[in-house]
């Protein structure tokens, strides 16, 4: 029977291989300069695997040095993932000047609120502040992506399939990370190998989504959008709101008239 540790190492080797293939594919499709932060993020995960594997070989395994190296590299990777998310958000929204100005404030606020809320559960304990920060960060990434998708849906903004798949991968990994971590937090010490294995599996699924997207979907084309003057939007917007208000009032009249009768 295969030991959990061996299984985890096998999955780890497999994800590193898929990461390398993804990076090569990004280079082959000439996406490196078009998605610099995403490419740096993928590269950083490869470097992280190499660094942590080396640390495991050099130091004794239950070692504080290995733990510090692993967490420091993880912080860098999470930061780069966040940058990749910002890059994708910009690519999707910055053609729409007005929408982008509104969206980034909204997304930033949502992200900060979720992160702050996650930290509230730490109760001043540094160990939990550290762990909840990572978990909160991942939850923020997931929430920002979902808010962005809902926002795009509300305004009927088209999202190219490549962007959509990259976002989906980021969001799925973040959400499953939070779920895995939370469900196993009480038994993290006993189940550390199992937890590592589940985490790697969800990450592998994410990598496969990205690899498929990068290999299949073309680079999104950008076309000029018609623009209306700001003043025209302001006037039309308030008039439209008035009309919506009036229609709503009309409906309320119907409701109230019925209530009066009853």
């Amino acid at each position, binding site marked *: 029977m295969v030991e959990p540790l061996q299984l985890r190492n096998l999955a780890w080797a497999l994800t590193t291989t898929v990461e390398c293939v993804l990076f090569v594919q990004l280079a082959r499709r000439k996406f490196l300069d078009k998605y610099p932060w995403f490419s740096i993020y993928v590269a950083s995960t490869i470097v992280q695997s190499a660094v942590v594997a080396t640390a495991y070989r050099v130091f004794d395994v239950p070692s504080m040095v290995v733990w510090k190296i692993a967490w420091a590299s993880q912080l860098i990777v999470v930061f780069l993932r966040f940058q990749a998310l910002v890059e994708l958000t910009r690519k999707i929204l910055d053609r729409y000047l*007005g929408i982008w100005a509104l969206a980034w404030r909204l997304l930033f606020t949502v992200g900060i609120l979720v992160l702050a809320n996650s930290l509230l559960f730490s109760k001043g304990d540094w160990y939990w502040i550290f762990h909840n920060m990572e978990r909160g960060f991942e939850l923020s990434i997931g929430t920002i992506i979902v808010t962005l998708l809902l926002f795009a849906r509300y305004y009927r903004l088209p999202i190219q399939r490549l962007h959509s798949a990259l976002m989906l991968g980021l*969001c799925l990994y973040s959400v499953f990370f939070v779920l895995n971590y939370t469900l196993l937090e009480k038994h993290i010490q006993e189940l550390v190998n199992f937890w590592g294995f589940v985490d790697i599996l969800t990450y592998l699924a994410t990598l496969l989504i990205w690899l498929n997207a990068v290999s299949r979907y073309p680079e999104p084309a950008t076309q000029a959008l018609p623009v*209306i003057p700001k003043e025209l939007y302001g006037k039309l917007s308030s008039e439209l709101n008035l009309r919506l208000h009036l229609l709503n009032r009309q409906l309320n009249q119907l409701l109230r008239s019925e209530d009066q009768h009853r």
Partner: protein
Amino acid sequence: MSASLLFFIFFALVVLSLLLWASRPAKHQFAPDADVFEALSQSRHCYHFHQIMQALRPEDTEYLREIGQAPLVRALRLQRRGVALIYLDCLQKEFETLLEISRALAVMSPEVIAMEEMERWRLSVAFAAHCAFLKWKLRLGLQPFSGFTLLSDMAINIARQLEAATTRIAETAVRGSEPSATGHENIAGL
């Protein structure tokens, strides 16, 4: 079960569900440069509000009841409820068209007014809730009612305000479609 455990699991599941919902294929997209003013110039169902209210008045069927035509009264009321439901559908469609127009305008605008966008979102939620509620009430059997002359007057007043608002939209649009000095590409279709 601790509060943090509940929070993280609940929140993660909500995010996952919303992700699935938001990833569904979108409905048809409104073509902003061609359809905005065509949609605005379409006839407005809200003007028939007075007739709808009239049709639901108790006096309209009271006479038939008095002369013993109860089955006819029932049939008539059923028919009128059906008309009222169709009217509500049209009203909803009109509301959605206006929302579509406002979204299209926001997408094309170099700057959006957050408060107005929020207000529109609030209105759309309120309208959807009221409309669904009223439709269910009608389906369950709306009875004719009395004493709403005042309401009819208010309805006429609303229709007048709507007319004025629409005229202003058209005027503003015509003025706005004239070549501007902003340097941006203007919408050709306006």
